[in-house]
Each structure stands twice: as C-alpha cells, then as structure tokens.
C-alpha cells in the first residue's frame, strides 16, 4: 500500500511536469511572435522590442521555462498584460466561484446519476428502466450551452424564479447560492446522463454475482441488497467516470460561466485569450490541467478506500 501511494505520487508529480512542458511549449516555442500577437500588426519595431524585453522573450527558452516554473511553484505567474495586476491575484479572486460551481455540479451529478442508475438497474427491463435510459440518451445528446439557454428562458425569463445570470459575490450568500442554481443544473444534467448509464450497467453486472444471491438468501430487503451490497461493489467504474467527469465539469465551466456571466476562471480564460494575455492564459491552462490531474490522483486513492483487494495487491 505504501508502495502504491509512493508510485502514484511520483507519477502525479511527473504528469504535472509533463503538462507544464507542453503548456509552455505551446505558448512559447510554436511559431508566432507573442509580442506581435499582443500588439498587433501595426506595432512599431521599437514597441515590439520593448515588449519582448519586458516579457523576457530574449532569454533562452530553457531559462524562461525554468523561471516560469520557479515562479509558478511559489504561486507567482507574472503580471497580466491586460489587467495589469499579478495573475495570481486574478486567479485568487475567481477561483472560489469556479470551484464552488464545479463541486456543486459534481455533487448534483453523482446524486442524480446514482439514484437514477440504481433505480434503472432495480427495474431492469421494465418501464422505469426504459424511461430513465431514454431520458439519459436525451441528456447525452443535448449540448450544455443550449440546455443553459433553455433553463434561463424557462426559470429566469418566464417564471422569474431565479436570476438569469451574474453573481452578487459571497457577501450576499443567499443571492449567491440562487445565482449558482441554474449553472449547476446545466452542468450536472448532461454529466449525470452519462454517469447514470455507467451506474446502471455496473449495478446490473454486480447483481448477477453469487454474493448478491447470498445476500438475498439471508432475507435482506431488495432495498438493502441494492444499497448495501450491490452499490458499494458497483462503485469502481462509477468512481473512474466521476474522475473523468470532474475534468469535463471544470472545463465545462468555461462555457457555462460565459452563458451565465459568472466572474470565474472560465470567463477569465475566455477574456484572456481574446486579449492575447499570454501569462494569464498560460497560468490558467496549467491550473486547469493541474485540477484534472489532481482529480485523477484522488480517484486512485478512492479505489483503495473502496476495494480492499487492491490494498493487498499493491
């Protein structure tokens, strides 16, 4: 077990390192002059030279990379060109919103998907199963941004239950939560459609196994067999998909934050790309990648918690 953790930690660090190389390379080595792309084609040669100097573009690539990594490890991602403040400040302001959105989206996804998936498996081949599978097929087919617009039209414009967008800040908690409801639902519905199918097929697989027959032979109720015996054993594939979906949710916030005018990281990366704000884009892409890698690392740890057999093997 110690060995497993050690190996996973090493590969976690190596993955982050590899991601940083790719992100840096894409931003700095590929053809195109960052100074030119920031200032535009009309810029004078003097202005370009000055900006190259300011960005440190005259240094060798390797030393620029090392300087970037050294700064990033300490939370220093340089100065944003468009906002003229440290990138770390921009991130610190917007991170809580995006993290709240991603986590609430994940929680709603898991609750909805497990409930529907288990219900479908329990009613295998009956109307309930078909209904849930039809809805999930629909959910998979619908794009998140389109669903968001429908939700806004229905709940904000027509019924006026919830705000159509914007974020009042955490100083008004009730209003803040209300403004996150629609974005959360928009994120979660699509993801839970996928996860419900995984849950259903994993549960059906487990229901056929001998130890479930043993549990039935012990006179346990259907509900107890389902939730206490089938579901815990069906969790491994579910957790795998949840890890992947967390990545999709985090990147999904880019679209959702733009649709709902939420001042989070997703909107920041969108603006930064439009403004050709290189240090900010570079830091955000790295941050998104780090979140995804961390999520997968946590999934690996969850496997150990779920299945004692893995502990023995590792």
């Amino acid at each position: 077990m110690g060995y497993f953790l050690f190996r996973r930690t090493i590969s976690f660090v190596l993955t982050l390192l590899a991601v940083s190389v790719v992100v840096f390379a894409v931003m700095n080595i590929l053809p195109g002059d960052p100074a030119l792309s920031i200032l535009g084609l009309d810029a004078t040669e003097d202005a370009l030279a000055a900006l190259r100097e300011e960005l440190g573009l005259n240094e060798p690539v390797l030393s620029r990379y090392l300087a970037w990594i050294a700064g990033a490890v300490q939370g220093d991602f340089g100065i944003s060109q468009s906002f003229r403040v440290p990138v770390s400040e921009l991130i610190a302001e917007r991170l809580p919103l995006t993290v709240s959105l991603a986590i609430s989206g994940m929680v709603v996804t898991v609750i909805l998907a497990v409930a529907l998936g288990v219900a479908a498996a329990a009613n295998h081949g009956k109307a309930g199963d078909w209904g849930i599978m039809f809805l999930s097929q629909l959910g998979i087919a619908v794009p998140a941004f389109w669903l968001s617009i429908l939700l806004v039209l229905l709940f904000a414009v027509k019924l006026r239950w919830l705000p159509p967008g914007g974020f009042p800040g955490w100083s008004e908690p009730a209003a803040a939560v209300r403004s996150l409801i629609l974005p959360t639902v928009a994120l979660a519905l699509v993801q839970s459609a996928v996860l419900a199918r995984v849950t259903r097929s994993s549960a059906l697989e487990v229901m056929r196994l001998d130890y479930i027959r043993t549990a039935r032979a012990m006179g346990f109720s259907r509900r107890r067999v389902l939730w206490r015996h089938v579901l815990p054993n069906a969790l491994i594939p579910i957790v795998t998909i949840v890890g992947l979906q967390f990545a999709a949710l985090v990147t999904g916030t880019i679209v959702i934050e733009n649709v709902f005018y939420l001042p989070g990281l997703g909107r920041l990366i969108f603006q930064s790309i439009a403004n050709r704000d290189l240090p900010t884009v570079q830091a955000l892409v790295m941050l998104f990648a780090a979140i995804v890698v961390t999520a997968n690392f946590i999934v690996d740890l969850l496997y150990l918690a779920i299945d004692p057999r893995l502990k023995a093997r590792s």
Partner: protein
Amino acid sequence: MIEAAGLTVELGAGQAVREASFVIAPGDRIGIVGESGCGKTMLGLALMGMVPDAGRVSGSLTVDGTQMVGAGEATWQRLRARRVAMIFQEPMAALNPIKRVGETVMEPMMVHLGLGRDAARARALELFREVGIPDPEARLRQFPHEISGGQRQRVLIALALACDPGVLIADEPTTALDANVALRVTQLLVGLAERRTMGLVFISHDLAAVARATERVMVMYGGDIVERGATGEVLVRPRHPYTQGLLSARPSPGNMRATAGRRGRLPTIPGSVPPLAELAPGCRFSGRCPVELDVCRGERPPLRGTMICHRAEEGA
C-alpha cells in the same frame, strides 16, 4: 418443518421440478443426488422462494405450516435466514468481497434479530468457534480474499446459522473444495444438524459425501424424484435404472476390476441429460434407460413404493 406436495417449478420451456413431495422434519438429514441439470438446485431454490423471475411455482409448499406457494417476496424475506437458510456451491464467489467476513456474519443478526454491534460480534465469534474456524478473533476482521476456500465455506455456514434456521439447504457445499477439506466440511454439517436438531438438505452429485452426510436420499432425474429411501439402502441396493446407472458410473474397487479388461473404462449412462423442453412427457429417463418399455416414453410412471418406474414391480 418443510412439507412439499406436488411442488412443481416451470421454467419457460418445461418443468425443472415435477410434482415433488417430501417432508423435512427438524433434525432430518436428506440428500438430493443426480447429474447436473436434473433439477436439484432448482428444488433447493424453490425451498428458499428464489427461483428465477421467469419461473412459475405450483403445488404446495408449507414452511412451519405457512403456505408459501404464491407467497410474496416480503413473506419469503421473513422466512429466509430465520427458518430456512442456504449455502451455495462456490465459496470463493459467495462472500461480498469488500466486507470483512465478521461484518458479513453480523449483518443478518443486526437486521433480523435486532442485535447491537457488540452483541452481534460476540455471537459471530461464537459461530466461528462452532464451525471450527481457527483464531476466530482475527478471522472476523479479514476479507474473503485473505482466507482459504475451506475457511470461506465455514464462514458461509456460520452466516447461514446466524439466525438459527430450522432447515439448512447446502447446495454442492463440498464440490469446490479439495477432498480433505470437503470431508471435514461434510462432518461439520452433520454435527451441526445433530447438535441443533436442524434439518439438513444436502444437494450433491458426490455420492460418497451424500452417503456420509445423510440418512435419507432422493435421486432426481429430469425434474422428477425417481427414487428415494434410506441412504444406505438406496446407495447400496439401487432399484431405479437411473440410480443403478449413476452408481455404476462411479469408480470403486469393484467396477474398476470388472472393467479392467476393457482398457479400464468406467461404465457410463449413454447420452446426457436432455434440455428441459426435450424431456419425454412420460418417464424422464426414457431414451437413456437400458430396460425401457414401450409405455415409458409417453406415460408418466406412477409412484410405487420408493420409486417411479414402469418396471418397479419387476424390481427393475
């Protein structure tokens, strides 16, 4: 106390169990023998109310006086573990792999008997001792993959005994175990049945194990109980042609010597058990029977004494 009368299990294409009648009283030890696919397991499942969804059960089955044919799932749930318990063939696969075996054995006591964790743990420890699990304190905390097949079967027996059932159905309890372990598990089941005056239904195709474990035996073929009687009597002087074939097909010093001339081949029953839908409407064994008459195929043989066979009177 279990009483079956004309108990029939229909499975889509045909009858997996046909008009089975028998009584299992406290302390009875009854064997059910026969080839694979002859209905032994389906009969066991019928006694637990666990035939597959597609199956239809008819006839009469009472458990402690309650009619269970047509009873709902909720009624069966109250019976399972407390009146009738069952252990299955594959001890490797029959235990929840992510639960400690102690927790598995404690669960029915906490759910059905309302015991608290400490009381359930104490009883689980007692049960582990009773079924002969060495170092029971440590075993309680282990996972199924950490213990051997024989120990797992003992854990399953402890689980089945958790709510002190009146009848224990053991479906091929020793088949997946090696010979030494199988012998000890058989002896354990006999000892438990005697000490607890618990009924034991021992389903097996291992005739030696059935001979050791049971007092009475029912031989099944194609869903019919074709012969029954005292275990010693039936297994020593089989009267039904199927039982005779079954017995002659097992290696023993006698038939090995008799067949030595023919390159040491064991006698076999020609053919194999046909699928349910293709069974003859009359005697199920017709087509494979060496002493078949014209009436056998179409007409169901009546129960005569201890067997159903058209040639029963001739002492076939």
